[in-house]
């Protein structure tokens, strides 16, 4: 019995320690963002010898949104002779291919479509295919539902003048934030993730995460780390870690903002977070140990990378911690815990639980949308859904630790109507 209790106490102690580390990390990030020195080294680069850039726009059944993305890109403040837009029709069954071809016809040489009739095997495969058909050193990726602003491309490209930079990430802002409670909660979560988390990582020279869209990659860096991996659910996280391990820097550009559509149904949100969790855990399995042992990467960056990769294991760990606590309670052992452990649990309970809320509140303040902070208590709903989705995604992985299914293009449903997005250029308008 004593051995069982000791084991449970050790498990609980380990869980509390891990959760406290994550809570501490969130406090450090938030306080740094609020009071630390902010790093935006390339934000003021306005005039330069801009390099050739290829913008990749992977699209699968995106007839509702693809025209907006292409119109906005054609309107970008970037030398036209240096910019090639490559929409990738990935085995679409709707009108996506036709819309892309119309744009290509009207903008010969500027819009070069890639059709993948046998595609549909994931975004990374589409990117790999298109990358092999282009030659420019800088590749920028936008998802089809993103609407880049005029100055966005220069903001994303400027950091590549630094020869050490392998990838650049911009900020994603939910366009449909006001649609319902879920989108409002996701708006807050995104703000916390980008305005605080990513920028703090940038400030502290840690690992800003390349997010797969509203971002750019240097072709040499991509080649150096083995190119796009098609056997992963989160090619962005995978690429982030590989770049870091090879010594490339990733720059987060907080002012390179771009609208996206966030899921409007809980079902879609559940599937999205489950996919992210599985992908993250998969990258952790692949690179966790190697990253930890890569001595050429500074220690702080290695720790940040491991915490980044392990973030989706936190939910099942917390569930485990709760279960162990209950077991110890009903075994009458809680009072027997050493005082330090009780203190740790109490500290976690009071401070750890609010770390994420603190971060999101800080983000709302930095964005100047303070009234939205009042929604914070309702974030518990979103966290509960995430807890379930992430735990479901993680537990089988823990058991199997290998990929058994080919990646699927698990699209988030679009809610925007065709061409319903303001004055963007449409094929009809061009004609």
């Amino acid at each position: 019995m004593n051995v069982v209790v000791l084991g449970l106490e050790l498990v609980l102690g380990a869980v509390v320690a891990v959760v406290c580390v994550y809570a501490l990390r969130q406090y450090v990030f938030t306080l740094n963002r609020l009071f630390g020195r902010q790093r935006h080294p390339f934000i003021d680069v306005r005039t330069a010898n801009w390099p050739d850039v290829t913008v990749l726009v992977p699209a699968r059944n995106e007839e509702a949104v693809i025209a907006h993305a292409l119109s906005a890109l054609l309107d970008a403040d970037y030398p036209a002779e240096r910019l090639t837009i490559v929409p990738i029709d990935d085995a679409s069954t709707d009108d996506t291919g036709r819309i892309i071809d119309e744009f290509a016809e009207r903008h010969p040489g500027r819009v070069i479509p890639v059709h993948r009739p046998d595609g549909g095997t994931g975004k990374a495969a589409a990117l790999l295919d298109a990358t092999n058909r282009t030659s420019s050193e800088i590749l920028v990726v936008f998802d089809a539902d993103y609407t880049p602003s005029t100055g966005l491309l220069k903001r994303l490209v400027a950091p590549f003048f630094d020869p050490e930079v392998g990838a650049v990430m911009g900020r994603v802002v939910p366009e449909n934030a006001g649609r319902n409670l879920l989108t409002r909660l996701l708006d807050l979560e995104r703000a916390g993730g980008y305005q605080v988390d990513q920028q703090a990582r940038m400030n502290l020279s840690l690992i800003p995460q390349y997010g797969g869209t509203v971002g750019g990659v240097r072709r040499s860096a991509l080649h150096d780390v083995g190119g796009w991996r098609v056997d992963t659910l989160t090619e962005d996280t995978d690429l982030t870690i590989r770049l870091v391990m090879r010594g490339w820097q990733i720059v987060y550009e907080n002012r390179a903002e771009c609208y996206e559509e966030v899921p409007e149904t809980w079902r879609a949100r559940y599937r999205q977070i489950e996919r992210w969790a599985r992908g993250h855990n998969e990258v952790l399995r692949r690179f966790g140990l190697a990253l930890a042992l890569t001595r050429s990467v500074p220690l702080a960056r290695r720790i940040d990378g491991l915490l980044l990769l392990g973030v989706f294991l936190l939910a099942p760990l917390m569930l485990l911690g709760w279960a162990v606590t209950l077991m110890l309670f009903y075994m009458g052992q809680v009072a027997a815990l050493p005082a330090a452990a009780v203190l740790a649990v109490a500290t976690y309970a009071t401070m750890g639980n609010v770390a994420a809320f603190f971060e999101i509140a800080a983000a709302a303040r930095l964005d100047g949308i303070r009234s939205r902070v009042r929604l914070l208590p309702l974030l518990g709903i979103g966290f509960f859904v995430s807890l379930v989705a992430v735990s479901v995604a993680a537990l089988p992985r823990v058991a199997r630790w290998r990929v058994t299914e080919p990646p699927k293009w698990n699209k988030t449903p679009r809610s925007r109507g065709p061409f319903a997005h303001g004055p963007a250029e449409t094929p009809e308008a061009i004609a």
Partner: protein
Amino acid sequence: MTAFVVFVALVLLTVVWWSLPLLPAFQEWRGDMPGPLAIPAKHDGDARHFANRFREYVAIDSQRPALGTTAEQFVTDGPPLRVFVASAPLLIDQDWVSPGDIYAAKSVRGDGGVKMRGLLAEENIVLGERAEVRRWIHSGNDLEVGASSALSGRASAEGLLRVGEGTSFEWLSAPRIEFGRVSDVSSGPFLAGQTTESVVAGRPKKVDGDLEIAADSTFDEDLVVTGTLRIGPRSVVTRSLKSHGTLVMGDDVSVRGSVISSGDVIAGDRCTVGGIVVAERSVRLGSENRVGTERVLSTVSAPRISVAAGSVVHGTVWARGAGSVCGVCGVCGVCAGNAGALR
């Protein structure tokens, strides 16, 4: 029955009590659905943004009072106005303080000590010594600001922008920006015809610790140094440089690509840089430096920038904290500091 009622009442009371802290959240949720966080769709970071908006603003209301040919006449004859328009060439008397933004359809010439908030002239602007611009100034042709002036905010020109010695600045933008008196600025070994790719394929050579490149060397790789990087005089670098610490360029160094530092960039005299110059702490340029070309504009950016007289930058110079133009006299410390760093 009574017990049941008490139980239900207790449950209801508990729910209400528990919900009280959530009232603001419910109120926010049920209130007006907010729009997305605003992203300026057309904002492209152009230094001329204020001037362009002001030109549109003036054009919309053509009934604005016209300013006479001299500011003195206006100040004595009319009440202070927020915006006024000069249709003829405008002469501004010494130490005149403008009460509002000025639009000049022709040229503007100001004597020493004039102070203004915003000024747009479609032709040349020449301001004397000790001029003070609080927000922005733009010339449709050339802009010249005398010594010991203060340019807060944006200063831009479509042609030449000449900034006098001892002048402080924040954001300068023009195809050619001259600091102090410029005689003959070298174009370096390759700047004159530079049109090649600014971002070149390949993995940079990385050096842990400090590195010193000997004088008169030629370096053909992108280079990243985790410590201090010193480039010997007259060296030629055909790619880009980055230092995690201080990056020091000796006299007559030429760099075809960009110069990036997580700390300071210190350049000696007569250096040429084809790409951008960015530092996270400061940039100090010696005399007769040249950054960018007429055909390929560039950017110099750092929280603090000091440029010795005689240098030329094509494009943008943006000092978020403080920028200054120094004479080659050793008094302000830039030249002396550079000399120390270069030793």
